[in-house]
């Protein structure tokens, strides 16, 4: 049995993973979180390993999976300044659980690690060196999922995958450019706020806006709250502003507008990444909601007719988690993968535990 954690402020998502199946829950990250998880986890004696997702590895953590030791704990704490709301939860959770279960291995999953090797041309912001020295660069995120998608695409299309754009569709839609398994660029920047608007994050905006809000009397904390938690699709749709609210059900005023923006931004970034890859052979979509996403994907792919994207008219065959969407003889590989972060974390944890055994 594995115990896995994923911060999602103001919540903590956690899961008991046993015999290939995930039992996932979510609780408010307040005074009661530990008691709630403990009660829900059942017999702790059966836990073989604990895994924690770190959304931002800062400038020091560059391994996708790391076995936690007292030294690494300090390094993890140093990342809090990069993404306080998320990383603070991860730190508190791992602090508590390493104390609670000292005898078993604990692993840190770093979601920015896959992008730590971004070429300088993509990873650098065009600001003075003095500012770059503070750790300001493009870190990306969702690296575990994009790396996993690359492997899935390679096993689906064999040797025909070289230049791939990987599109994660969800509450926090984001896109990565990959070449031969390495990341070349991503929509997510210094923080996950940059890029495509998310459920509550504003996405790409003119940075002058920050200064204008500040001079109108807002504090840094308030501006951060506003751009990270009160913007994005929430600004259009109100409380029900998740990815599924946007893509499912009948059209509405804010919804049509939101869907148009999402499609438009995905379109732009696929184009931008095709340019830096100097062409494309594989377009991979990843989502937790494949059926609900199919209409959106068809709409996006319809705009790339000129690149040789042609989809098969068939629906998704039942029972799988990976679908080849491209039509016979189409120039471009198009695939859809159903992602489950718990499965990805569990697989990695199990392989790490096995590795350590004599």
């Amino acid at each position: 049995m594995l115990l896995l954690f994923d911060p999602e402020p103001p919540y903590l998502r956690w899961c008991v993973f046993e015999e290939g199946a995930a039992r996932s829950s979510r609780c408010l990250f307040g005074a009661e979180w530990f008691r709630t998880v403990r009660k829900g986890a059942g017999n702790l004696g059966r836990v073989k390993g604990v895994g924690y997702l770190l959304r931002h590895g800062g400038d020091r953590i560059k391994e996708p999976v790391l076995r936690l030791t007292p030294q690494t704990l300090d390094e993890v704490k140093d990342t809090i300044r990069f993404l306080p709301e998320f990383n603070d939860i991860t730190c508190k959770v791992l602090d508590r659980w390493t104390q609670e279960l000292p005898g078993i291995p604990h692993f840190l999953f770093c979601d920015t690690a896959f992008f730590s090797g971004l070429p300088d041309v993509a990873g650098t912001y065009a600001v003075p060196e003095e500012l770059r020295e503070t750790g300001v660069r493009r870190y990306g995120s969702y690296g575990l999922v994009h790396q996993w998608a690359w492997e899935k695409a390679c096993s689906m299309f064999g040797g025909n995958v070289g230049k791939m754009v990987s599109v994660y569709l969800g509450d926090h839609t984001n896109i990565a450019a990959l070449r031969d398994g390495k990341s070349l660029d991503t929509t997510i920047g210094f923080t996950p706020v940059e890029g495509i608007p998310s459920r509550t994050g504003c996405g790409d905006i003119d940075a002058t806006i920050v200064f204008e809000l500040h001079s109108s009397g807002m504090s840094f904390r308030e501006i951060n709250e506003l751009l990270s938690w009160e913007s994005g699709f929430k600004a259009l749709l109100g409380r029900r502003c998740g990815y599924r609210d946007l893509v499912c059900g009948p059209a509405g005023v804010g919804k049509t507008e939101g869907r148009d923006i999402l499609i438009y931004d995905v379109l732009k970034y696929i184009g931008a990444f095709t340019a830096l890859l100097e062409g494309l052979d594989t377009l991979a979509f990843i989502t937790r909601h494949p059926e609900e996403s199919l209409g959106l994907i068809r709409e996006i792919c319809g705009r790339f007719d000129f690149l040789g994207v042609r989809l098969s008219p068939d629906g998704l065959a039942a029972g799988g988690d990976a679908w080849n969407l491209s039509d016979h003889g189409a120039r471009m590989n198009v695939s859809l993968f159903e992602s489950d972060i718990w499965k990805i974390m569990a697989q990695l944890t199990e392989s790490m535990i096995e590795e350590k055994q004599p």
Partner: protein
Amino acid sequence: MNILIFNCGSSSLTFKVLSVDPMENIRVVLSGKAHRVGVKGSKPSSIEYEHGGSRESVETPLDDHGQAAVLVLDKLGEIGIKFDCIGHRWVHAAGYFQTAWVDAALLLRLKALVPILPVHHPAILRVIYACRKALPKLPEYVTADGAFHSTIPACASTYLLPKGLVKKYGFRKHGFHGLSYRYVVRKTAETLGMPLSGSRIVACHLGTGGSSAVAVKNGESVDTSMGYTALSGLVMSTRSGDIDPILTLYLMAVFGYHPDDLMDMLNKKSGLLGISGFSSDIRDIIQRVGDDPQAKLAFEMYVYRLKKYIGSYVAVLGGLDVLVFTDDIGVHNWLVRERVCAGMDWCGVRLDTQANQRASGDEIARLDAPDSKVKVLIVPTEEELVIGWEGIALMKGKQDAASLRS
């Protein structure tokens, strides 16, 4: 009819006197530029005039744009060039006007727009006031630079911020270099004998100060790289272009940068200057690409960001017919064009590298290889001519109104 046009840069003032015949053909009677206005440096400030086939440059202290305008008006009086109205380029009208006569009400509105562009707008206002003081009876008008981008659809211009805030501050993508793009698009269609209807053009205005790119469909702007202000988009000479808005908060909250200082750094010390550490001039940077890793990175980032924008606009337009380069760097720097067009086969761009290197940059030139699906052009821009086009239309309206009254 003669029109005097003033076009303010951050440290320069371009001017032209256009003569318009009854068929509305435009001829440039005099042109010139004031250099290093308000700049304290080792090189002296000067005003350059070109008139009747001769060139003249006068070294003179230039404290601000208003003073430069007064000197230009004096010079015109001296030569004996008369004009019927004065047109000014206004940068950011926040959607209030495209072209309008300057009167007391408009001046109030213009003053309210100063905070959006705290360098350019006060400079333009100084020129307007200098003209009103010197020639109180002469009509003056302003033409807004951003009007060309008013056709950008909501999905491209909206920032997903709380609606109340957007309404209160007017946060949205405005875009800039609109006059330049209007000129370039019209000239592109004329040069290629191509109808604008159904056409897909990406134009890159690469200036020694600001740079941007635009996606043009059916002759209309559908997206552009600059945003609410001129800070976002491409890597520019001293502006950072796109950055994560949260990183500004990180620098202020965690490292204690003062907002004014940081804003200044992002606008005046970033971009090519920020990366290279020694120059904002791409020519200096190119010279040191071979032996200075920071110079190499600066040049590569400049090209890389532009390539990404072109790619995203190709996707938006669903393919590409014409790629156009304009303004100083766009027309004069063959290496930038060569690098940008390299590896663009995927969208049909193939550069004729020899034609590209040979192009003088002083006139319109075709640079695409014979087997290129996309036409590649350089078109030297003429923002002042567009201000002239607007002035002709305005004066016509005035004459019509006068004839109705009489």
